[in-house]
């Protein structure tokens, strides 16, 4: 079953990748002219690729600083003539951004907390305690990777409607917080911590719960960081879950709110919309830039999400 995961050697390499910002085979300093040409070609290719990847973002941010008429000017104007910072003030009054942000933040924080807490706790049971049926149970967890959520979203919706949590924020918390993903990522990490440590603690009279709390949790901070970042990002960006469960506009997340803003936008301001989109991307971009290392590590340990 481990074949479903990133191959072990890859995982090690990914960890190294996370730690070392400049990977790659070393080249000797003696370069022939041909190699110099190759170098230039390489940089050109990379710059073109980076431009292609970043241009949509650039356009989004620049458009958010334009006037409404400038957004679709022909020929396309990449940099606005006058920077209209006012868009960033207006979007808060012209839409319900504050409510959307609050809901999204609340969901992302609660889901992340539960995912880390229950996930790491269960992972300890899977990684360190032997009992009959454990491996089958874990296989059940892993098996759900290949099952798309869209295939069981209807029975799940009916179930949660019966619990009377549909159209509350609880629904999103419940469907996101107990996924197999957290268990899986934490178990992978725990298995890299030497058994001797817990053995020593056991001899000192620490209970299994104590070992989890006092030894495993502190040692797994990097894994917790990756899991938190990945969970936070995916909850923040989720669209389908909120679309199905959150009918009441007071409960909307930022994604639903912005989508409704687009649909109502026939006569209003596109520049304003771009300001809203940029605001919705900023928190994730900041979190990503701060925790880049942990994102790569999270992929290293699990290789899956999304």
């Amino acid at each position, binding site marked *: 079953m481990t074949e479903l995961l990133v191959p072990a050697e890859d995982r090690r390499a990914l960890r190294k990748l996370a730690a070392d910002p400049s990977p*790659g085979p070393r080249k000797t300093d003696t370069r022939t002219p041909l190699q110099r040409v190759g170098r230039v070609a390489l940089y050109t290719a990379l710059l073109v690729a980076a431009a292609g990847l970043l241009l949509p973002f650039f356009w989004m941010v620049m458009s958010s600083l334009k006037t409404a008429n400038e957004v679709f000017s022909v020929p396309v104007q990449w940099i606005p003539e006058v920077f209209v910072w006012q868009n960033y003030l207006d979007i808060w009054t012209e839409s319900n951004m504050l409510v959307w942000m609050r809901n999204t933040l609340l969901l992302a924080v609660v889901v992340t907390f539960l995912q880390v807490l229950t996930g790491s706790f269960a992972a300890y049971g899977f990684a360190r305690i032997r009992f009959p049926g454990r491996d089958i149970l874990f296989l059940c967890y892993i098996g759900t990777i290949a099952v798309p959520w*869209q295939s069981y979203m209807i029975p799940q919706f009916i179930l949660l409607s019966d619990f009377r949590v549909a159209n509350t924020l609880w629904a999103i918390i419940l469907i996101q917080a107990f996924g197999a993903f957290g268990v899986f990522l934490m178990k992978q990490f725990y298995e890299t911590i030497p058994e001797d440590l817990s053995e020593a603690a056991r001899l000192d009279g620490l209970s299994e719960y104590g070992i989890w709390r006092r030894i495993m949790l502190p040692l797994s901070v990097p894994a917790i960081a990756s899991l938190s970042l990945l969970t936070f990002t995916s909850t923040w960006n989720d669209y389908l879950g909120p679309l*199905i469960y959150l009918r009441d506009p007071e409960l909307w997340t930022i994604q639903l709110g912005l989508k409704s803003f687009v649909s109502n936008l026939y006569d209003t301001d596109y520049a304003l919309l771009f300001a809203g989109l940029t605001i919705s*991307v900023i928190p994730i971009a900041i979190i990503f830039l701060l925790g880049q290392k942990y994102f790569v590590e999270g992929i290293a340990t699990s290789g899956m999400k999304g």
Partner: protein
Amino acid sequence: MTTAAATKAGRPEPSQRRRRSKLTLRNTLLGWSFILPNFLGFATLTLVPVVTLFYMSMTNWNVFGTATWVGFANFERLIGDGSFRISFWNTIYYAALHIPLTIVASLGLALLLNNKLRGVAFFRTAAFLPYITSIVAIAVVWNLLFSPDYGPINQILRAVGMANPPGWLTSSDWAMPAVVIVSTWRDMGYYMILFLAGLQTVPRELYEAARVDGAGAWQRFRNVTIPCLRPTMFFVTVMLTINSFKIFDLILVMTDGGPGQSTSVISQFIYRKGFEENQFGYASSAAVVLFFLCIGVTIFQFIWNKRRNV
């Protein structure tokens, strides 16, 4: 450890056996006490719905929760349903474009970044940024980039001399390729990271040996890089396949299945029948098809991989 000692001694003494079963019981309780908080949520919200799905797909379940057993009638209806057939083939079409394109793009990017260069970290960040950006932001921005008359993409195409650039999302021929371009743009950074890790594991001596034997860059790539990347390639293909079959959000926000039905996919069919038309039973039978499509292809890929490994 006690268990190992006991089995080694052959038949364990009665007292030992009792101690062992007591230990097993203790461990079982202990193990479950750790797993239970997560398992309760996981079982209720994932396992139970997955099992219920199969029952629901055989019923005529509507919004009031009254289910009447209809056997395979829903599936027969699916086969005859033109809009399901279109969704099914669109999903396959999307996967057939998206999987190879993403593999080529992300592997290409990984090969470029696998060199010792200044600013590698910057390029890696640039590649990964789309992956963590929300679908709504991506869809809206690209929709406007793609707009036929005033969108920057067609303006650029006209500027480089294309007289009649495609209508993209307004054209039923170009809408799906446009969606594929966006999803490839979004996903390539993620798979690039996986490929980059795979590339780091290729032994450098192999390249040296190939160079000594006079192999050119292309030959080294074909005969050293590709075979060494096999495990990574396998993993990437499996994940990409599953992710392609369940494509939904991007299409819903970008095109809502249109124009006409040219971009409608299975997930969206499920959503529409279930949540918009309240035909839960019928929608579930389409969900069963999606379920088997993903599981089936995954199992097939595993067997294929095993066979080639032997």
